[in-house]
């Protein structure tokens, strides 16, 4: 039976703003299927975003939705999660939003292990503003602000997440849709902070500047280069060259921040009077 997306959409607010060939719609659908398969109540789901193409997603979804300032979705989300822990908080963010202007919040939310899920829509470019270089733009690639090629090395922010002790780290792509849905589902179900990178494409702002003839050509890269992380780890360093690991990289249990805050508040309220 076909999946009923309309159950979760604000149909009145469609069509969306995304361009033909954009990967955002694929990720959106995987997210809705994941939420559905977890049988979450719509009232208990909160989508939070910053600024950018990916950040327009919450407006189309029939949940509690919060479209914040550029880079700041995570701290907004933390405030809400602390006050109402029963909310399943999911943050949709682009690569610029999450790890350039929002990079500091990204590091510290990983370290705090707040029970939320961050999905980073990584299309290696600032799409909404017309194709400027982002922290994940490959070295040498062309963007509106790197007409002579990108001089900076791209950021592998999943390694940053690992360094900051995030408890759930995964990568999927807009090509591997079954994996994408599975990874998002497990990320939401995980107790702690989950980071999901979704590699996807922006044919409009990135592809046309970097010799991709179509969105399909761009997706073919994910098909050709991606290897499941278990297999990837068995490859020699030479064999790993040019390959992109996908799947769940890390999943561990640790004290969760909001639970601990609430535990402290309960203990402190019971404490006897004293200076």
């Amino acid at each position, binding site marked *: 039976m076909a999946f009923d997306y309309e159950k979760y959409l604000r149909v009145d607010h469609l069509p969306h703003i995304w361009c033909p060939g954009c990967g955002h719609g694929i990720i959106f659908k995987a997210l809705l299927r994941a939420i559905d398969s977890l049988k979450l109540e719509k*009232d208990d789901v909160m989508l939070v975003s910053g600024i950018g193409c990916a950040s327009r997603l919450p407006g189309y979804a029939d949940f*509690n939705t919060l479209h914040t300032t550029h880079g700041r979705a995570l701290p*907004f989300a933390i*405030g809400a999660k602390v006050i109402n822990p029963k909310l399943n908080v999911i943050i949709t963010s682009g690569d610029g939003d999450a790890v350039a202007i929002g990079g500091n919040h990204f590091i510290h939310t990983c370290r705090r292990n707040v029970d939320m899920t961050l999905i980073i829509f990584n299309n290696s470019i600032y799409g909404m503003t017309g194709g400027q270089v982002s922290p994940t733009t490959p070295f040498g690639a062309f963007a509106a602000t790197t007409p002579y090629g990108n001089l900076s090395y791209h950021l592998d922010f999943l390694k940053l997440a690992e360094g900051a002790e995030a408890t759930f780290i995964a990568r999927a792509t807009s090509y591997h849709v079954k994996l994408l849905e599975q990874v998002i589902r497990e990320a939401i179900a995980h107790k702690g902070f989950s980071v999901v990178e979704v590699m996807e494409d922006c044919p409009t702002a990135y592809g046309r500047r970097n010799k991709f003839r179509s969105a399909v050509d761009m997706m073919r890269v994910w098909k050709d280069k991606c290897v499941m992380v278990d297999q990837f780890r068995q490859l020699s360093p030479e064999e790993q060259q040019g390959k992109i690991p996908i799947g769940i990289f890390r999943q561990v249990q640790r004290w969760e921040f909001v639970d601990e805050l609430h535990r402290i508040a309960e203990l402190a*309220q019971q*404490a006897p009077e004293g200076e």
Partner: protein
Amino acid sequence: MPGPKFRAGLRLMSGNEAMAEAALYAGCRFFAGYPITPSTEIAEVLALRLPQVGGFFLQMEDEIASMAAVLGASLAGAKSMTATSGPGFSLKQENIGYGCIAEIPCVVVDVQRGGPSTGMPTKPMQSDIMQARWGTHGDHPIIALYPDSVEEAFWETIRAFNLAERYRTPVILLSDEVVGHMRERMFLPKLATVSVYNRRKPRREPDRYVPYEGGTQDVPTMAAFGTGYRYHVTGLFHDRTGFPTNDPAIIETELRRLHRKIERGYNEIVKWEEFFLDDAEEVIVAFGCTARSARAAVKRLRSRDRKVGLFRLKTIWPFPDRAIRQIARRAQTKQFLVPEMNNGQILGEVQRVVAGKCAVDGLQRLDTEMITPRQIMRALRES
């Protein structure tokens, strides 16, 4: 609410401590902040005290995150607060603007120090007056209060929360290094005697809730996220439903409502103290720590039969235009003097309101030292 956690009685407290304690009386249950002198004691007190009343304290990774977390917590239903000083106040500004347009109640304390930039962390200035008004971009309304004593710091903090909740807006609670750090006697009231206002919640069913419908007071009701009202909040221009719009007529209508809701509240929001003003020929307009010197100057000059009075601003923004204009129109009013620890930020406001009806002089000090009563007396003699 666990009553015994609030102990009424006489205490010796600093202004910062009084603000922290008052926040709890007002119902604040969430604080997010970042260490910065001279406001840090507010965070330190609340780190200890908030859990005791079932609340939550977060030290965030920076000032911007602190402001964001405060807004997120408020949207989930909690009265929320942050505290900072000049450089941090600058960093918070974008999200303060978000609070203005998304109409999210919260209290932002700015304990002023020397500036611009790092300036002088451990000494007072009063140079964030205009930043409190116009710090965030866009033509937004704002409420800013500024107490001048420890006792008033307590009560104005409670008023700041009540106004934030009443008008669904960020309220800036100004202080300065002197008010924040000096210790005075403070009589902590019984919790039950403090009048507290809570945001109005929607009475309608979720499917009929219009999140930004102003109603007769131009202040929309506010549903907490996660209580069955699934709605959208954005910093983009939005219509009454909360969804983005680029319809020019709706944008203008909604922005005008934002301003109107604060203008309607003028009588409730704008407060001041009149000290020997009835027959005053010379009127000092002062605020915060400088008002303390001004009061001393008035007392001394009155003992010499000089007809001097003090108009002390308790609300800085909206500015008390009407009250000052009335005083300027009195036959006996000859002169205004505006002493302030900045380069004339309130002087310009008083000149605007007085509009040439009588003389308006400034007395400014930019060296991080308090303006003394003697300086004010000398300025009056010279003018």
